[in-house]
């Protein structure tokens, strides 16, 4: 049985079952107190889950850059913001064009993806000229500039601190309003599956192998006559587009985008998620994204509970800051469990004939160049 489950068909079967189960959740009445705000059919629980899935999709796209290609980027939030803001702004711009709403919606989505593609390649082309920490700094600087421009309401488009609201009249009706939360949930699930499949495809392709090889040994790849720069740029651009896809989903789910999603802190959160889940594992990004989001929500809930408020300040102040708890949890994982959640589960199953590809994530090697 175990050998079937770890075969290719077995994995496919597990995947289909998992996605099928996730797709049925809105029709079921599962209540897990303390994890979800209500039974799984309620809009409250579904929007939390949908949000978690979009973050997981975003984390997957970051996994391509950090886990697969071994590049430490601090600018990934920029592309997520490009997706969310892009859709919101383009809908507003195209609204007076007189096209039918369906067409406007589709055109806006396509244009948003094009913008993300161009932005990703532009930033990537420049940042990839350097490696290691300098690369990280260049991506950080670009993201910071983008963040400042968004905050300043550049061109009267981004709405400053208020952000951009989704023009609901141009969005298909099935995706608008609390009553349609389950549709948005399915959309988020679809986006997660789509991004996952794209990651599998990229990682399994020849290009994915080359980019992974370049992470381990740049020289060997160069000797083979391949330019690490080109393959890295492709991965960077692809990850940018996938992040934008998640951003589009975010805009539809939340109906608004604020500058928060373009900050360096937001990218750092992605880094935390990927490491928490397990660097180098696709599943790690997904599990990390979902666990992190739900923890974040639950911890915020916990913070406002009465028994926390009654604790002395030394305890109740740190306990009422979700990010403090998550940050320290992250520090502990880095120091004591480098493989993250997936790494730990691999270690537990290894003795019982689990997967053997649980190698140490190579990205945690010295990037100092």
């Amino acid at each position, binding site marked *: 049985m175990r050998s079937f489950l770890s075969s290719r068909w077995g994995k496919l079967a597990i995947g289909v079952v998992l996605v099928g189960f996730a797709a049925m959740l809105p029709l079921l009445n599962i209540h897990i107190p303390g994890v979800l705000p209500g039974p799984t059919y309620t809009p409250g629980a579904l929007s939390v889950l949908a949000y978690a899935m979009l973050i997981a999709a975003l984390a997957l796209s970051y996994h391509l850059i950090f886990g697969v290609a071994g590049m430490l980027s601090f600018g990934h939030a920029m592309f997520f913001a490009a997706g969310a803001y892009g859709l919101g702004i383009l809908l507003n711009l195209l609204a007076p064009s007189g096209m039918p709403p369906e067409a406007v919606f589709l055109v806006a989505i396509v244009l948003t993806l094009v913008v993300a593609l161009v932005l990703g390649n532009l930033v990537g082309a420049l940042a990839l000229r350097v490696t290691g920490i300098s690369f990280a700094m260049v991506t950080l600087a670009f993201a910071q500039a983008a963040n400042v421009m968004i905050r300043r309401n550049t061109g009267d488009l981004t709405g400053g601190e208020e952000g951009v609201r989704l023009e609901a009249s141009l969005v298909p009706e099935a995706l608008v309003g609390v009553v349609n939360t389950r549709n948005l949930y399915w959309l988020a699930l679809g986006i997660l599956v789509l991004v996952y499949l794209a990651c599998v495809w990229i990682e399994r392709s020849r290009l994915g192998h080359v980019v992974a090889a370049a992470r*381990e*040994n740049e020289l060997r790849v160069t000797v083979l006559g391949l330019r690490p720069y080109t393959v890295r740029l492709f991965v960077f651009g692809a990850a940018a587009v996938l992040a934008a896809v998640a951003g589009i989903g975010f805009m539809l789910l939340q109906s608004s985008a604020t500058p928060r999603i373009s900050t360096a802190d937001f990218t750092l959160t992605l880094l935390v998620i990927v490491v928490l889940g397990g660097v180098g594992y696709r599943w790690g990004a997904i599990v990390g994204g979902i666990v992190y989001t739900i923890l974040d929500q639950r911890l915020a809930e916990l913070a406002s509970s009465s028994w926390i408020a009654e604790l002395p300040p030394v305890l109740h102040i740190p306990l009422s800051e979700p990010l403090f708890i998550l940050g320290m949890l992250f520090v502990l994982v880095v120091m004591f469990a480098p493989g993250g959640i997936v790494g730990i589960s691999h270690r537990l199953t290894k003795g019982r004939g689990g997967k053997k590809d649980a190698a140490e994530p*190579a990205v945690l*090697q*010295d990037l100092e160049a």
Partner: protein
Amino acid sequence: MSAILTARGLSARIAGQQVVEDVSFDVAAQGVTALLGRNGVGKSSTIKALLGLTERTGEVTFDGTRIDRMLTHRIVRQGIAYVPEDREVFSQLTVEENLRLAERDGAPNRAIIGELFPELLERARQQAGTLSGGQQQMVSLSRALMNENRLLLVDEPTKGLAPLIVGTVTKALQAAAERMPMLLVEQNLQVVRDLAHTVIVLSGGRVVHTGPAAEFLDSELVHRHLGVSTDTEAA
């Protein structure tokens, strides 16, 4: 002859790449043991592995003490000095600062520098990066020789030096070898002949030959393992 250092099953990795594989050898407690092999065979990596400068596995015992799990500075403080390939002097520091940095215990033997390389004393305030290759090698050797050591690890000391300087360096090494045992990596077989009594030959990351130096250098093994013949090495 007894051994000052023994390596058993030593392997080393650099950036995830296996560069030395399951190597076992002894370094004699007296005189010079030479570590030979073609370019890129893992000689420098072996020395670095002994010092803990690369990721390594296996057993290394120095004078009865296991050192394969120690941090580099602890290993060095056991009394092992290192003269690295390419000299690695601190180019931004002066000669004097380079030497001061290397002083390990209370009574460094500064006099030896005056005996072996008097010109360094005149250049004490000069930036080490502006020295010639030979002078830099003198600094590097001085760093190793001025402390009380029980073993010297010397990696390619004559690489890229003018013939005249090669003579000076060889003489300094000869003087050092009278005081303490040495593991020497050297391409110049004449220098090996002058200094070493035993050779260890590496090929493909493994030890392929161990034996007396003169015997090896006169045999056809030299050609097989090093790709040079004894006739041309002097050139």
